[in-house]
């Protein structure tokens, strides 16, 4: 009996130490701080992108880039620099892992009429204009891998903004090759890609 109680106490201690601050709904405060903006179950909300299902190494590297101010577009500056400033590396690691395990839902908010053109561009690029295929790095279903993000089902507005901002010189210190690729895309190509990707499950 005593043994059992000790075991229970040990288990409780383990849980408490792994997740330092539990809110009433068993969601750690650090998670709650993200979902205020990124939406319940982290499906994205307004300008804040979906985090659910994102590749954990990507999310972690982005949190770091907000801290280092290398991801420097206006919304990042306004919201994420402050949000990430005091995150410990272990909390950033935990959050990235936590959100990667949430089931992502597709935003489905792009222009359906452009989806076919976007799909072709995503899969094969455009060799005539020296535009590379996105799928070679992001995966045939835009699922991402390692530090390369999942793009499938992110919102049209987020994707469009992100792709456009590269061309405007933001986030220029990001790892090659994205700044170079995106800065060459035309606005029509960006519209098509963002539309297509918003429907990918």
């Amino acid at each position: 009996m005593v043994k059992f109680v000790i075991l229970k106490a040990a288990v409780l201690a383990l849980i408490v130490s792994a997740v330092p601050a539990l809110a009433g709904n068993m969601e750690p405060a650090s998670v709650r701080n993200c979902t205020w903006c990124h939406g319940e179950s982290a499906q994205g909300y307004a300008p804040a992108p979906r985090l659910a299902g994102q590749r954990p190494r990507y999310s972690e590297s982005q949190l770091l880039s907000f801290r280092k101010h290398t991801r420097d577009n206006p919304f990042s500056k306004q919201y994420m620099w402050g949000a990430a400033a005091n995150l410990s590396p272990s909390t950033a690691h935990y959050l990235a892992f936590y959100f990667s395990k949430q089931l992502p839902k597709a935003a489905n908010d792009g222009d359906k009429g452009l989806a076919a053109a976007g799909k072709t561009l995503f899969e094969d690029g455009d060799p005539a204009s020296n535009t590379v295929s996105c799928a070679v790095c992001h995966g045939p279903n835009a699922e991402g891998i390692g530090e390369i993000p999942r793009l499938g089902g992110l919102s049209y507005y987020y994707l469009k903004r992100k792709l456009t901002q590269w061309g405007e010189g933001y986030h220029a210190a990001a790892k090659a090759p994205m700044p170079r690729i995106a800065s060459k895309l035309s606005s029509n190509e960006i519209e098509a890609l963002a539309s297509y990707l918003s429907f990918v499950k």
Partner: protein
Amino acid sequence: MKVSSIRLALPTAILVIAFSAAGRAQDTDAAKFSRQSLQAKIEYCTTCHGLSGQGYHGFYPIPRLGGQQTQYIENQLQAFIEHRRENRYMYSVAHVLSPAMRTALAKHFSKLNPKPLGGAPKGLVVTGKKIYEDGIPETNVPACMACHGAEAKGQEAIPRLAGQLNDYIINKLANWNKERGQIPSRPDISAIMLPTSHNLTKAQVAAVAAYVGYLK
């Protein structure tokens, strides 16, 4: 006995196939594109293959082109176009390139010498070196060195392996018969690797890939 006959037969077979391959682009084609369009194509290639042709770990391992044999690159571009080598991404890239442009790109990348990306488990290197240099007589695996050279630099139609991404080599050897030589009526030099890719175990492939992946 068997092994030594394979060793003799291999270079002969390679020579026969290499010389029966389609004629190389004439140098006179070189004037058909501008410096700027060549530069734009080089940038296009390096977007995926790395700024100095060192390769890149995307969703798929994207091979190193730096220091690769000119003739090998030209042959592969041709094979993508003709669907002898199946790869939808490289088909899309290659089918718009003129023969002269293909030659110019191949020459460009053959002259680069980036540092290998490495990254394979170091513990496999010793076994890999042994397979690379001695082959595996019990399972009819010839020494890789016999064709790819002691330093794995390749020659003409035979590719350089030195510094190649190890996961790229693992992928290729695991899928040899699904990717290469896809028009049976028109066999190409890739047929030489078919029995070897078959006879190597996964562990042996990983070892060889690790060894060559670190070679400069």
